[in-house]
């Protein structure tokens, strides 16, 4: 799948969104959003009032009623459009996923010897069925490899073109429907029902078909409904008040229904109401653009709240493998001599550690690989018995290995371990490194220090997390000594050494008991219990089926640092909601000042003192407010889709900034906007 990061208003999505914003005028669709439903009813009402004005007579001019009505309809359409465009982005992603879900004929094994097959359509497979998939064929559905080893192209899911190896047993046994076997064959046991495979769920998720409102979204919806109800009451009671005012002061006429509806729509939190679902969908889209599939919106929201982040050491905090960082020669031995010997001993060592020794030797002393063919060396590969590897060259035996193994080796040749080397070995072990001793014949030359290399920039990320109020915990199988050293270097807040699945699980439970929300990543089957317990659990796509089932998100890139990004996206989602709610409410102040003096101009002309914007006429004031209210929705669609920028600063600082921008901004912007629209309408003689 090609990663889609569509332009905000890509033409195809745009056209589709226009179409569907009209289709969404269906009252059943509108009813799902109470705030916008009231606007919808208001639009209908003003349309009827307009018809009445045209056919019979009315207290307002039919042109004015029509203008209000049209802009109310636009308000509804703009809200529909915002939702549609967010959905469009999701659908575009889903479409490319769907391409890989073409119908597949599976070859089901029907006999105990796993020889005979019958062809079965993929949707007819049942859990527990065994299927064989050969090179060039597509895996019909999610399952577990029970036999065979094969390379599989998973680019349909991950976008990563390099094939991965899948084999029975262990942590690489899970396969996903829709991926392709490139070489060899696999026998797969079906693990999910048709229509519920990973790919299916992913499509449903990005399409938003199964979108349920998240708890926070529901709470906000309640607040917005309450506000809407309040304004409905305020506006509804304004009619009697107005009638009484006319009665008591004996001049003017009561406020018209059209103006009441206009006032109500302007006051109701339409800005956030219109954009609320778009914000939610856009949040999920951002997540899938980050190549993470969330199984529920709830998990994304929870990500914003995470207090504790549990990260595996290997691959997340440190580079995957240990690397040589230092040569420590024995006394009377030059460092370069040690480096040369170590280099030679590692020439045939294709492990990452071996290569890192060669790299270090080259970096420090400019040693290069020699033309091995001319010197006819004899390579001694690593064996479990000797626990050493090396080379025999010009009659010299050069070996490297663990301290004890080398000591035994040199003793047998009549040499011995020098004291300084022994103490160097100890101090390396103490600081979290791994010592490798190098010897030539019976002489010990010195020690190579291998260390875990902490990833560049990770310390800064952790500092950032700390500022966000998130505690990081490193999980490692290392002994506590090594773990402590790496933890200190990486700047994590805490670590769990010699971690077993049980220890991980109980650590998560402990944090949760203290009321904290825990996020973790995992890939192995033995991570599954901990993943299931964690509040935000990101399974690596390369991991086992069990891990993926246990998690509530899957990272397609299998990148454990992705958690940090997920937390950001979660926070952004909530912040966007908060910012637009504040903005929406703050807007109301200006609208009051625009509409109220206009609405009561005939009864109480002195209320004109409240018209701070000095708008042209009562009808232009009301119309300007309605138009502003509609246009602001469209103006904020990009913000709703992109989300409010999140910077990792303390909560108080964040609140101050956002209050300033969206609170104060929300107060000031409509004054300017309404005045500008009023000027425009006046200049163009539209009112």
């Amino acid at each position: 799948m090609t990663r889609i990061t569509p332009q905000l208003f890509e033409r195809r999505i745009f056209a589709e969104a226009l179409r569907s914003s009209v289709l969404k005028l269906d009252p059943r669709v509108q009813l799902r959003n109470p705030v916008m439903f009231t606007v919808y009813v208001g639009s209908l009402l003003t349309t009827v009032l307009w018809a009445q004005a045209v056919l019979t007579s009315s207290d307002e001019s039919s042109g004015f009623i029509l203008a209000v009505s049209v802009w109310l309809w636009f308000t509804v359409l703009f809200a529909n459009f915002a939702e549609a465009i967010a959905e469009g982005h999701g659908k575009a992603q889903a479409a490319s996923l769907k391409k890989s879900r073409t119908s597949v004929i599976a070859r089901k094994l029907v006999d105990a010897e796993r020889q005979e097959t019958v062809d079965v359509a993929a949707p007819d497979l049942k859990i527990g069925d065994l299927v064989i998939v050969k090179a060039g064929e597509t895996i019909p559905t999610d399952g577990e490899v029970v036999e065979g080893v094969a390379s599989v192209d998973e680019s349909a899911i991950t976008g990563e073109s390099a094939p991965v190896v899948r084999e029975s047993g262990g942590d690489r046994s899970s396969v996903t429907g829709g991926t392709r076997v490139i070489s060899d064959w696999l026998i797969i046991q079906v693990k999910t029902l048709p229509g519920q495979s990973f790919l299916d769920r992913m499509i449903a998720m990005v399409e938003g078909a199964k979108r349920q409102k998240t708890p926070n979204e529901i709470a906000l919806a309640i607040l917005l409904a309450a506000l809407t109800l309040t304004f409905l009451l305020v506006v509804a009671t304004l009619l009697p008040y107005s009638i009484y005012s006319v009665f008591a002061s004996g001049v003017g006429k009561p406020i018209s229904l059209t103006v009441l509806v206009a006032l109500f729509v302007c006051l109701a939190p339409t800005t956030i109401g219109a954009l609320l679902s778009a914000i939610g969908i856009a949040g999920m889209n951002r997540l899938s653009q980050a190549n993470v599939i969330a199984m529920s919106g709830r998990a994304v929201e929870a990500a914003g709240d995470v207090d504790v982040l549990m990260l595996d050491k290997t691959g997340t905090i440190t580079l995957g493998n240990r690397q040589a960082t230092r040569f420590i020669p024995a006394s009377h031995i030059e460092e370069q001599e040690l480096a040369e010997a170590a280099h030679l001993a590692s020439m045939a060592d294709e492990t990452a550690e071996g290569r890192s020794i060669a790299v270090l030797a080259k970096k420090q002393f400019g040693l290069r690989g020699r033309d091995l063919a001319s010197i006819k060396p004899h390579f001694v590969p690593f064996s479990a018995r000797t626990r050493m590897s090396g080379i025999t060259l010009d009659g010299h035996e050069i070996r490297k290995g663990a301290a004890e193994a080398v000591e035994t080796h040199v003793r047998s040749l009549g040499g011995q371990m020098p004291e300084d080397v022994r103490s160097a070995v100890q101090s390396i072990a103490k600081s979290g490194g791994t010592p490798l001793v190098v010897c030539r014949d019976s002489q010990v030359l010195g020690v190579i220090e291998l260390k875990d290399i902490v990833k560049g920039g990770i310390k800064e990320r952790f500092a950032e997390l700390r500022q966000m109020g998130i505690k990081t915990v490193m999980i490692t199988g290392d002994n506590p000594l090594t773990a402590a050293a790496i933890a200190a270097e990486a700047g994590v807040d805490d670590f769990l050494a010699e971690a077993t699945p049980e220890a991980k699980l109980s650590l998560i439970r402990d944090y949760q008991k203290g009321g904290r929300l825990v996020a973790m990543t995992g890939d192995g089957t033995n991570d599954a219990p901990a993943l299931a317990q964690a509040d935000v659990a990101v399974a690596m796509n390369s991991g086992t089926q069990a891990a993926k089932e246990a998690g509530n998100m899957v990272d397609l890139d299998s990148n454990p640092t992705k958690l940090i990004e997920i937390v950001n996206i979660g926070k952004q989602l909530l912040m966007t909601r908060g910012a637009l709610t504040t903005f929406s409410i703050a807007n109301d102040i200006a609208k009051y000042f625009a509409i109220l003096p206009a609405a009561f101009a005939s009864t109480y002309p002195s209320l004109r003192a409240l018209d701070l914007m000095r708008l042209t006429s009562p009808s232009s004031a009301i119309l300007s407010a309605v138009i502003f209210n509609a246009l602001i929705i469209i103006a904020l669609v990009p913000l709703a889709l992109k989300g409010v920028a999140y910077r990792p600063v303390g909560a108080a600082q964040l609140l101050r900034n956002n209050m300033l921008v969206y609170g104060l901004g929300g107060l000031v912007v409509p004054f300017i906007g309404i005045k500008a629209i009023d000027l425009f309408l006046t200049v163009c003689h539209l009112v």
Partner: protein
Amino acid sequence: MTNNGLLQIGLFLGGLLACAKPLGWYMARVYEGQTPRFAGWLTPVEKLLYRLCGVDSAQEMTWRQYSYGILCFSVVSFLAVYGIQRGQGLLPLNPQGLSAVSPDSSFNTAVSFVTNTNWQGYGGETTMSYLTQMVALTVQNFVSAAVGMAVLVVMIRGFTRANAGLIGNFWVDLVRGVVYILLPLSLALAVVLVSQGVVQTFGSYREVPLLELTVDASGQPVTTQKIAVGPAASQVAIKQLGTNGGGFFNVNSAHPLENPTPLSNWLELISILLIPVSLCFTFGEMVGDRRQGWAIMAAMGVIFVPLLLIVVVTEQQGLPGLSALHIDHVAGDRQSGGNMEGKETRFGIVNSAMWAVTTTAASNGSVNSMHDSFTPLGGLVPMWLMQLGEVVFGGVGSGLYGMLVFALVAVFIAGLMVGRTPEYLGKKIGAFEMKMAALAILLPCATVLVGTAVAVLTTAGRATIFNSGPHGFSEVLYAFSSAGNNNGSAFAGLGANNPFYNGMLGLAMLVGRFWVMLPVLAIAGSLAAKKKIPVGAGTLPTHTPLFVGLLVAVVIVVGALSFFPALALGPIVEHLQMTTN
């Protein structure tokens, strides 16, 4: 603003703050069940009451049981107050031989005192016997205040308890509130008030010779005056301390036998706000973080003080009509100046304005001047303070729990803005809490708006509006703002002792009391059942000036958005007409 005015405001606020902190600490101990040693002598009274009522003080309740307890207690209280009024002609302690109160007025008054509103449609000295004043009304002054405080304490327990189903025992909270807090304070205040000349007697009304002779409407000389007396001091003390406000006499605290001297005025002013302010400290003390209490108090103060200054300044500024006639009414050291209509010369503008703002901030319905005669803006402030939901100090208990509901809304919005699902004092605020908070804020507001609408649309409602134009509208709006938010303050200028207003305002008071109280109890129950989340760097601190500002903004914005149109048609347009004509 005169220097004298500033000095008086300073004396009032200083005296208040000095008393509030120790009292707040003491009340926290009382409600935590740890009676301080100096109050130990009251313990036998407490134990005796439990034994008499068969209360098992160790047995705690769920929030539903607690609510049920409050409702039952309120129904019984209502029936008792109603019954005593209807039967007072047959009951003792009625030296004036006052007959039964009318059914609609009895209903209104019973609701009014049970809901801690103390709206008075009746005139005390011409309607109520001493027995009714003491046994029906004064008793309710104590217990309705104690109920409000109990509900607040339950809400605080919602924050302090974790994974708990039980939130305390209603009868225990009620009894402890009365015995340890309200009774001793009232006793002390009543004695001091008597020393200032507040009357306390069972004797009948006195007929005294007039010092300055006058003639009546038909030209006949008038030589004597009947002076109403009665057991007033005991009622006045609790009417202020319990934010009740129901005066013994019709003109309430403007009456020389209820509020005779500047000292009694100062003491009564302080006692009006004493418990509401102290409860902020109680809150901080009980949640184990005093800064939280300070923050809430600061938020209330930030709204209160500027509004107080506005009223003092607008009343002292005087009237354009008088200025046009070249009348010198500039406030200064030699004359009160300004708008003195409806104000006692004993108190002057500053003390009248302080009283008006204090009583409407706290839900205390007493008056020492006639709010109807204030300038339009001077009248707008007390009205708006009530419309804010009586959360700026507010009624004892009810003000703070109302403010805490607003705090939940504020943290909800603030939480979103910092990218965390909202939490307050370690409790996550979810959909249920928001639903209940919305009810608690929305319903009183709806009551005021709808009640006013019905009154101004119907003939019965319009019939007793004494003023025309926007001022008449203000009178109705004020009455419903007062009843719907359980304040009890009256603007006057509206004939309210008739079946229409007695019924409508009675209903408004019921909604304003119980439709806030029950959602608050539900929130408390839900919060208590939740686990407690530790504070981290990502948690939004709720004791900072920033949060105080946000809380103030939420209260003001909700109040302004809900009532701006109504106020525009009442005091605002009246002010504009007055200044432009």
